[in-house]
């Protein structure tokens, strides 16, 4: 992991103060995605190595004088020299991040967390179910699936968002859809009448998607309510619970398992997650205010 400076190797663990130290990354490109989401392309500076990561992992992004937030990595794991983060402006730090410009710097710590089981899914059908900004942490997994397309069975990408204007990575989705070997189905919660696509909840897309429920790996990411209903719909189709993976979100401060904020039952979302096999967390998922 590039950003954790190992100054002493122990039998377990490395010194943590350095993994609390952000490394300086330069912003090379700022792209507006939707009215509240934007993508930053970043590059390591000061001789630091590129941020090599696996799909599903996140970094802590530090904006000088404002604060730090956990953001999933949304780029291609094969080209880590460009670190890509798609961010939704919902709080003070992310809203401030929306004002950054090319050439400015951010502090990056990471990568942290568990990963989408792309390698483990080889030989299976793969279904990616994304809601809203949830497509961003899934995109690196999609890139990896495409990189070795022949090793997987059917691949379906099901994506639901608020309105057509909120569709993330629209051009890419259209490119993916144009492929003959991927099923891409998009729906929105509502639209004006010039929308020719689907309108309705993303769970509506599950009964009709083409995949073998008994031999599939399903990756789900979105608001927790959406994930809950998606899991019910997948269960209805017969997908075993240990083939469903979700990405959980909790308050994070340190991202290395010390501050205790991200605890979810016995799990630390920053190191046991954020990606979990649903089977592993099924006893916790329905407990309220956990």
């Amino acid at each position, binding site marked *: 992991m590039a950003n954790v400076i190992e100054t002493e190797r122990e039998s377990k663990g490395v010194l943590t103060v350095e993994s609390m130290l952000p490394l300086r990354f330069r912003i090379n490109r700022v792209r507006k995605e939707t009215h509240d989401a934007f993508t930053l392309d970043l590059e390591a500076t000061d001789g630091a190595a590129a941020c090599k990561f696996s799909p599903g992992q996140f970094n802590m992004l530090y904006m000088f004088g404002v604060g730090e937030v956990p953001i999933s990595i949304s780029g291609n794991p094969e080209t880590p020299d460009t670190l890509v983060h798609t961010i939704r402006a919902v709080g003070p730090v992310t809203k401030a991040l929306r004002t950054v410009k090319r050439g400015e710097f951010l502090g990056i710590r990471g990568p942290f967390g568990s990963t989408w089981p792309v390698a483990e899914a080889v030989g299976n059908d793969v279904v990616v179910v994304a809601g809203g900004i949830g497509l961003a942490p899934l995109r690196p997994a999609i890139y990896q699936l495409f990189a070795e397309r022949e090793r997987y069975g059917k691949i379906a990408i099901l994506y639901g968002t608020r309105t057509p204007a909120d569709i993330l990575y629209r051009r890419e989705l259209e490119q993916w859809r144009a492929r003959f070997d991927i099923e891409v189905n998009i729906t929105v919660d509502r639209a*004006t*009448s010039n929308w020719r*696509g689907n*309108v309705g909840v993303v769970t509506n897309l599950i009964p009709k998607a083409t995949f073998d429920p008994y031999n599939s790996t399903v990756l789900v990411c979105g*608001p927790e309510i959406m994930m809950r209903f998606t899991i019910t719909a997948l269960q209805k189709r017969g997908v075993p619970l240990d083939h469903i993976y979700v990405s959980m979100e909790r308050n994070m401060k340190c991202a290395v398992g010390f501050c205790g904020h991200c605890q979810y039952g016995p799990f630390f979302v920053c190191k046991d997650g954020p990606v979990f096999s649903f089977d592993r967390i099924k006893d916790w998922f329905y407990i309220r205010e956990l």
Partner: protein
Amino acid sequence: MDTLEPILQEHPFLMGLNPGHIKLIVGCASNMRFDAGQKIFQEGEEANAFYVVRSGKVALEIYAPDRGSLIVETLGAGDILGWSWLIPPYQWHLDARVVELTRLIALDGKCLRKKCEEDHELGYELLKRFASIMEQRLEATRMQLLDLYGERD
């Protein structure tokens, strides 16, 4: 209609109905086709049919004077369209506009209503199935209502 019977029999909606009832329903069925842009029905019109979508896409819309038509749901192959024929005052509450060339099986609601009044068992079976569809639509609508991807207020 001989050609429609096999299609209708296969449809999950009619599964479990006894052959006599299926024959009754098939007797009220006819093939239809709509081109993109056409309206299948409009809000306020008398609801005297329901449809089984065979292929294509239908948008259920509500018209707002200041915003134009807003799509609240789209239906596609295999979906059932329309339940207002079953519940008084038998009036459509939404517009149904065809988005792309759509083929449907139309079922004569007036005819079926009469048959349901005579044969309560048929009526009960149909109501059960439509109740299930309505429940699914309601659940989905509520999820849409939550505006899950929107900003927290």
